[in-house]
């Protein structure tokens, strides 16, 4: 089975790594050599890590770091994942077989598919400062420091979250253990009973707020992003 990073890279259309980055002058791409990628373990053209990034220093996260006798080096898929700045800042997912940036409604659809289909792998950066793509895992949803398990129970909670937001509860109000009376008082009787019945279903997420962040990103109006 291919490595998830390679799968994402192929879904993105096997692009070159973004060598330009934030540099103002044009950058000449470094010359590859033949070797083994330390992240995916695939043989092929590789670049030494310091040609790709200087900020990623936790080398023990590279599973195949000892595979190449000439030193730690990364292949094109890993280099693309590490140098993909937009994926550090905006939600991405594989939509219709293409890995690209997604709007909140598209992210919601991607999360719906991810519950049954392990190769969607949506990523939702929260702090916008962390590498998410290089640590991709099948059937998980990527956030800042971890890849969250995602299955049908999480999909149910996502639906409850969206319904609560449509009833007028904001992101901060949903994160609280009890519904806010001010919002509850505006609802009619059936909605109020529904809210009180289902409020506790999100308790598992309230203990793990990264899930709430993902759900918040997926249910925002597009203009807010």
């Amino acid at each position: 089975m291919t490595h998830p990073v390679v799968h994402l890279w192929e879904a993105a259309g096997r692009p070159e790594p973004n060598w330009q980055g934030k540099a103002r002058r044009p950058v000449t791409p470094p010359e590859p050599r033949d070797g083994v990628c330390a992240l995916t373990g695939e043989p092929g053209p590789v670049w030494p890590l310091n040609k790709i990034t200087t900020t990623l220093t936790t080398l023990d996260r590279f599973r195949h770091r000892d595979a190449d006798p000439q030193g730690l080096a990364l292949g094109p898929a890993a280099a693309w994942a590490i140098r993909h700045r937009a994926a550090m800042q905006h939600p991405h997912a594989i939509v219709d077989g293409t890995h690209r940036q997604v709007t909140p409604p598209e992210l919601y659809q991607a999360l719906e598919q991810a519950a049954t289909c392990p190769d969607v792998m949506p990523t939702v950066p929260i702090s916008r400062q962390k590498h998410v793509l290089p640590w991709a895992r099948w059937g998980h949803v990527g956030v800042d420091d971890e890849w969250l398990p995602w299955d049908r129970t999480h999909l149910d909670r996502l639906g409850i979250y969206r319904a609560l937001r449509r009833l007028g509860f904001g992101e901060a109000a949903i994160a609280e253990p009890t519904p806010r009376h001010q919002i509850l008082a505006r609802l009619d009787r059936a909605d109020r009973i529904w809210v009180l019945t289902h409020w506790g279903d999100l308790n598992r997420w309230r203990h793990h707020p990264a899930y709430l962040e993902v759900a918040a990103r997926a249910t925002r109006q597009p203009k807010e992003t």
Partner: protein
Amino acid sequence: MTRRPPVAELLDTSAAELEITDPPAERAAITLVALAHATRDQATWGGLGYWDQLAARVLLGTYRADSLPGWWEQMCRAMGCGQPSLAADRQTLAATLAYPDPRAVLDTLATHTDAVCLRVRLAWEHHYGARQTPDPDPTNQETLL
């Protein structure tokens, strides 16, 4: 001038309206907070931010007491609660303070304080109707809330 129905009846009506059946320990916690709310010193405790204050004092009472009568005494000191004026309420209070598993009730009061206060607030509003502004006449307030 109408008398308020007993607290137990008021909570039963609200639970039926919201289609909730509480476990006995939570029901005891809700009853105690409802009694504290009903018998508080109404000249002092009411108005804006009252419900947050009630939750804060319920929680504080659980820190300062290790039994239900101790918690009730703390509420008496903090909010001027006293003996309920209705005989049915006095019976409810005595029965609830002698609840066989006080630790479960205190745990509920400490961990689900906001939820318990919300239930009491919904019960009171269901009986009296939600009021947007506090009534300026203090005599009305005493009979109504």
